[in-house]
């Protein structure tokens, strides 16, 4: 488990890990914090945030040095192994200890166990991807997996745990500038031709903007109108003040959501009242690529409409020439006809149990394990990508001495507009809190539960100190969810150059005691 606080981010998946541990499975947790799973873990590699590449490269160093790699798999199913072998030869466990803070002996032991166990799987979540070097982290893990041939059968592989309910489906559906539905590249003339024919209208060739480019486009005037559907970038995007300023420049803003928030109330030109998951039919795709049915249990309140209906209405109002969509199933069928990996999935087949894509025709049983028997690239070979360590962009210094890392907690859902409305749930975590080590708290003169002020180069906020040994000295941790103390005011938006994932995970900050145990509102 690397960078995955599974019991909080994917609680029911964590139950399977708990069960496996009860049945004798070995769990090794690599995480800067002493998260719950470390209790069941044989070993906890408490690495410094952002040092993942060092850790993983050092594990590969050990595997190669001791000859534990799967030579046959490397020969038959991969390419460019030598490049990685060369790079990792420079990443010794002893040096790794200095950078990551993880004892060399633990790195060696973990590498040996991972390489020699037949059923060995790697799990990671946003902990790994929300760094400026997100893609590097994934490649280094993928190198590790390829080198040991741990993929393509049960309980192996590199398992990305998708954060939210339908992130997988969102990308599969083509809500991505680089891909048409079903990961069909937007830069391919052939693919554009296919969609132009299917839709009876020329689809655009000009590359689209990614999220970070849309956000910067708000400032420099490239983006003049924005249609936001169920999103509040001023909450979820790093450097939220900056995003808010950008939104103020936009000429025309449409939002479609369940609730109003500060931003929409002030800035939206049109607000469409939308639907919750309980009020519509459709599908969500889970982190195992399983397409599950969503079913309507209730009517929408008042005049609110189902989101798919609103989009169809908008297309009509704008003069688009669309076929009639009577139900979401019509949209699904259009998608499945256009996207080969989904062609075999139809509503009548997923009434009881969802199917996992790829599923290419009506008789296809779905695909539980990707990359079996060899990696799914055109030539059937998994590619090794050598990765060098890049230090986190913002390092602590004398003015901002603490490293702030952020993440999710069990009790809330991203910007928490849904869960913060649940009194019984909020009872467990009411106020924004920041986890800090007792030594740091003592040095600052802060007691557990005191309010403190966190200041970064970009903003500041107040939170309650949660003093404990979940973090090590010098590291503090905060959750993303609290509207009154948006942690994204502190973080910065230097993204991964390739995929534009913002660096939520580490920022340099300083901490000032507020000298009060009262909530800001009560002072």
């Amino acid at each position, binding site marked *: 488990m690397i960078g995955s606080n599974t019991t909080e981010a994917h609680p029911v998946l964590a139950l399977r890990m708990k069960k496996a541990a009860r049945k004798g499975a070995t769990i090794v947790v690599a995480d800067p914090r002493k998260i719950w799973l470390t209790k069941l873990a044989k070993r906890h590699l408490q690495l410094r945030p952002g040092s993942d590449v060092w850790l993983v490269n050092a594990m590969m160093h050990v595997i190669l040095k001791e000859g534990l790699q799967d030579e046959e798999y490397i020969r038959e199913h991969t390419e460019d192994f030598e490049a990685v072998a060369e790079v990792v030869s420079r990443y010794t466990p002893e040096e790794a200890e200095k950078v990551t803070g993880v004892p060399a002996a633990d790195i060696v032991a973990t590498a040996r166990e991972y390489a020699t166990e037949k059923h060995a799987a790697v799990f990671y979540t946003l902990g790994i991807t929300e760094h400026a070097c997100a893609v590097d982290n994934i490649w280094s893990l993928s190198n590790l997996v390829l080198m040991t041939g741990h993929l393509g059968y049960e309980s192996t592989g590199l398992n990305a745990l998708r954060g939210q309910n339908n992130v*997988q489906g969102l990308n599969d559906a*083509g809500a991505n500038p680089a891909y048409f539905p079903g990961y069909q590249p937007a830069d391919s003339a052939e693919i554009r031709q296919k969609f132009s024919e299917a839709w009876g209208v020329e689809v655009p060739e000009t590359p689209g903007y990614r999220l970070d480019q849309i956000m910067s486009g708000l400032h420099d005037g490239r*983006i003049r109108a924005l249609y936001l559907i169920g999103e509040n970038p001023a909450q979820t995007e790093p450097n939220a003040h900056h995003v808010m300023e950008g939104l103020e420049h936009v000429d025309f803003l449409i939002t479609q959501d369940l*609730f109003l928030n500060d931003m929409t109330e002030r800035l939206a030109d049109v607000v469409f009242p939308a639907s919750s998951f309980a009020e519509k039919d459709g599908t969500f795709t889970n982190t195992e690529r399983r397409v599950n049915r969503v079913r309507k*249990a209730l009517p929408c309140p008042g005049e609110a409409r189902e989101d798919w209906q609103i989009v169809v209405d908008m297309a009509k109002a704008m003069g688009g020439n669309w076929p009639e969509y009577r139900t979401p199933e019509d949209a699904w069928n259009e998608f499945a006809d256009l996207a080969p990996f989904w062609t075999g999935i139809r509503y009548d087949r997923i009434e009881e149990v969802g199917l996992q894509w790829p599923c290419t025709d009506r008789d296809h049983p779905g695909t539980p394990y990707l990359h079996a028997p060899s990696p799914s690239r055109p030539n059937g070979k998994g590619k090794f990508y050598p990765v060098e360590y890049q230090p986190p962009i913002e390092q602590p210094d004398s003015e901002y001495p603490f490293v702030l890392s952020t993440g999710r907690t069990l009790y809330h859902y991203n910007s928490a507009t849904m869960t913060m409305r649940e009194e019984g749930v909020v009872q467990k975590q009411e106020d924004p809190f920041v986890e800090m080590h007792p030594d740091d708290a003592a040095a600052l003169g802060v007691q557990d539960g005191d309010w403190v002020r966190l200041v970064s180069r970009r903003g500041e906020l107040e939170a309650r100190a949660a003093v404990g040994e979940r973090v090590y000295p010098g590291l503090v941790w905060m959750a993303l969810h609290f509207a009154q103390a948006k942690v994204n005011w502190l973080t910065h938006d230097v993204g991964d150059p390739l995929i534009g994932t913002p660096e939520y995970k580490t920022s340099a900050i300083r901490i000032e005691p507020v000298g009060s145990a009262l909530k800001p509102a009560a002072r």
Partner: protein
Amino acid sequence: MSSMVRFTLDGREASAPEGELLVHAAARHGVFIPTLCHDDKLDPYGGCRMCVVGVEGSPRPLPACATRVAEGMVVSTNSNVPAFRKTLTEMLLAEHLDPNPGGRPNELTDLAADLDAEAPFILPDAKRKEYEDRNRLMGYTPDACILCNRCVRYTQEVMQCSALSLEGRGPHARIVPTWERSWLDTECELCGGCLSVCPTGAIFEKFLEGTEQPERELVKTKTTCTFCGVGCQLDLNVDPETNRIVKVTSEPHYVSNEGNLCVKGRFAFNFVHHPDRLTKPMVRREDGELHETSWEDALQVAADGLNRVKAEHGPQAIGFLASARLTMEENFLIQKLARSVVGTNSIHSCEAT
């Protein structure tokens, strides 16, 4: 695949995969054996003896929920078992002043009705100490608890939360959060798993108190949880009169979660009914304020706004942000709107990872 074994069930030939629990093997052959302390989410336990059956060669009856089928086994579910079962049910009822508070679904009273069992008397010390907990989600009624230990086993085997324990002995025994603190002060994560396995409703959803509708008349709709990528399968239990979700349940045979849920999937559904939900379209007028309006008007204003920007600055000046909270179908249509109507590939989301 495990190999099949042959056994005899009430004089008939039967077969089952080797190692299958008798209670399941019998059910597949149409013989229903009542259980009380058994739950498919938990390890076999065999504590209450409600499910005992006769097995040839065994000196005493064996619990079907904890006995595995073996080659040549001769099983009888109907000799003197029903009488035994009735006595057992009567004894359990005798220990309870109030076996079924609040009319919640209750496997014990169902069983009593099936077997025509009634409490012969109520034990003089049947009244147990009441239990209050300041959390707003789950309550516990000691007087309904049959000490089957399902809840505690769930906390140990599945959640591993060490939040519940059995306290006291004999007539004073009850289940309480460890150290008799509130659930909120233990490692409890409010997943409601212990509640979901309780056969008697002794652990119950607090917010259910006060609904008029008997639980059995709620309408269940199976759907997928909206809160994370595990995609747990669950049933929304809706009161057909008020059209409100009253509770969320799940079944052990549901794929991905086997009947388990977390605090969000089980308890965080009230946002659906929150009074702040938007119920009318709104547009910003000259006065700078948002005003409620008709759909027709709102759609026109929105379409005109986008068309105007497109005419003045081109399609690249329009961005779309979709959402992981929406369905696949909705995201498909949104990107189609961006690409085929507006004419831009600038469609992304805040949750692309």
